[in-house]
């Protein structure tokens, strides 16, 4: 069953079809929520996002792709969470913890495998929110610029400029030793 058929059937109230969509995009949704800062509440954020997506499925433009539309809801839910907690994205905290030498097998949270990676990651987490979000979407989630624009709810040009600014800052931050 492709997305289009699943959406058509879900719109008619077929929850089996919607389960197929949920299962298909569950991993992407969890990654998005976690990397945008939902922390250990990613699971709840994701479930709530899928519930909202189902209730607003009628507003989905059928010629569009489902994934970025869904991930935008995930991103919004994540924003609501971090805003309600009055904290910066939990990504910061998590990564800070994971950089401690408790090894790559920490039972939960985001695990950093490589040492150089940890350095770059530390630089990413220090980016201003908007630049960090753009960088996370483009490179960690590997979304295209257009998808990133949709997920973050900004214009394409804004994605380009935030990404560039972020990359420039990262390069300054990590210096040349990371880059051969």
């Amino acid at each position, binding site marked *: 069953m492709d997305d289009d058929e699943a959406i058509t059937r879900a719109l008619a109230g077929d929850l089996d079809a919607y389960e197929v969509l949920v299962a298909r995009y569950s991993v992407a949704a969890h990654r998005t929520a976690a*990397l945008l800062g939902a922390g250990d509440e990613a699971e709840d954020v994701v479930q709530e996002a899928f519930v909202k997506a189902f209730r607003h499925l009628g507003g989905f433009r059928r010629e569009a792709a489902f994934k970025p539309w869904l991930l935008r809801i995930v991103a919004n839910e994540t924003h609501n969470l971090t805003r309600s907690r009055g904290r910066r994205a939990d990504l910061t905290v998590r990564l800070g913890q994971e950089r401690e030498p408790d090894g790559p097998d920490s039972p*939960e949270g985001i695990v950093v495998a490589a040492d150089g990676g940890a350095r770059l990651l530390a630089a990413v987490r220090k980016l201003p929110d908007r630049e960090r979000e753009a960088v996370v979407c483009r490179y960690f989630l590997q979304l*295209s*610029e257009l998808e990133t624009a949709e997920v973050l709810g900004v214009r394409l040009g804004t994605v380009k400029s935030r990404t560039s600014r972020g990359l420039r800052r990262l*390069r300054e931050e990590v210096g040349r030793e990371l880059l051969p």
Partner: protein
Amino acid sequence: MSSSHDRPGGDPGDRFDELEAELRTLGETLHVPTPPPDATARAVRARLEAPAPQHARPRRSGLLRRPRLSPRKAVAAAAVFLAVLIGATPQGRAAVVSVLRFAGVEIRVGEPGPLPTGVPSPLPSDRRVTLDEARRAVAFPVAVPAALGEPSDVRVADGGRVVTLLWPGLRLDEYDGNLDVVFRKDLGEPWPEDVPTIRGWWIQQPHGVSYVPRGGAPQPEERVAGPTLIWQRDGVGFRLEGADKEEALRIANSTR
């Protein structure tokens, strides 16, 4: 996505290729713990179906089905698919429910709720047929237990999805046991008893059973079932109700 026009920064001396590649690689090493996708799907469904968290009967909180598997995969997985879902949803957290899916039957073992009071109702579009008509109407081989002989009544329901053979005091449902969940059973402890000789499970206690329609209607009819044996043979799921364990096993062994 990695084509040149997609690269930020127009200045040739200001290229980010390597940094971008580093970031992508780093992204791939970031491990984000995610629950199994079908567990998320079920949890979302439960949220969508939950009327009001405070008053919902936990064991009816969802008509839970797994996403369809390809027949090949399903055959491999059909022997026993055991999943323990704990706290999949906040409202479900109170009711720790273990789910056993086997041969088209989903067995939910959780808090022993009240048994359903519903009056037994026929399966959807149930009709009386002869055994030959039943064999023509369904896509799977209809088996008759040699130990019981010709059934006194034969019924086909839901467009050939289920065949029911009836003898006085005995009921045998047969259905495609590979793909969908066809019946759901809600029971309290103890866990059903494994019967490896016939690749089946024996449920001794009275329990709620509901038919899960193909389209997955939200609220199935539920009724009380007595001791039941479920098993599978050649991809066909069997559900025998009304016999004691010894007799049920004898019947199952004679079903070909």
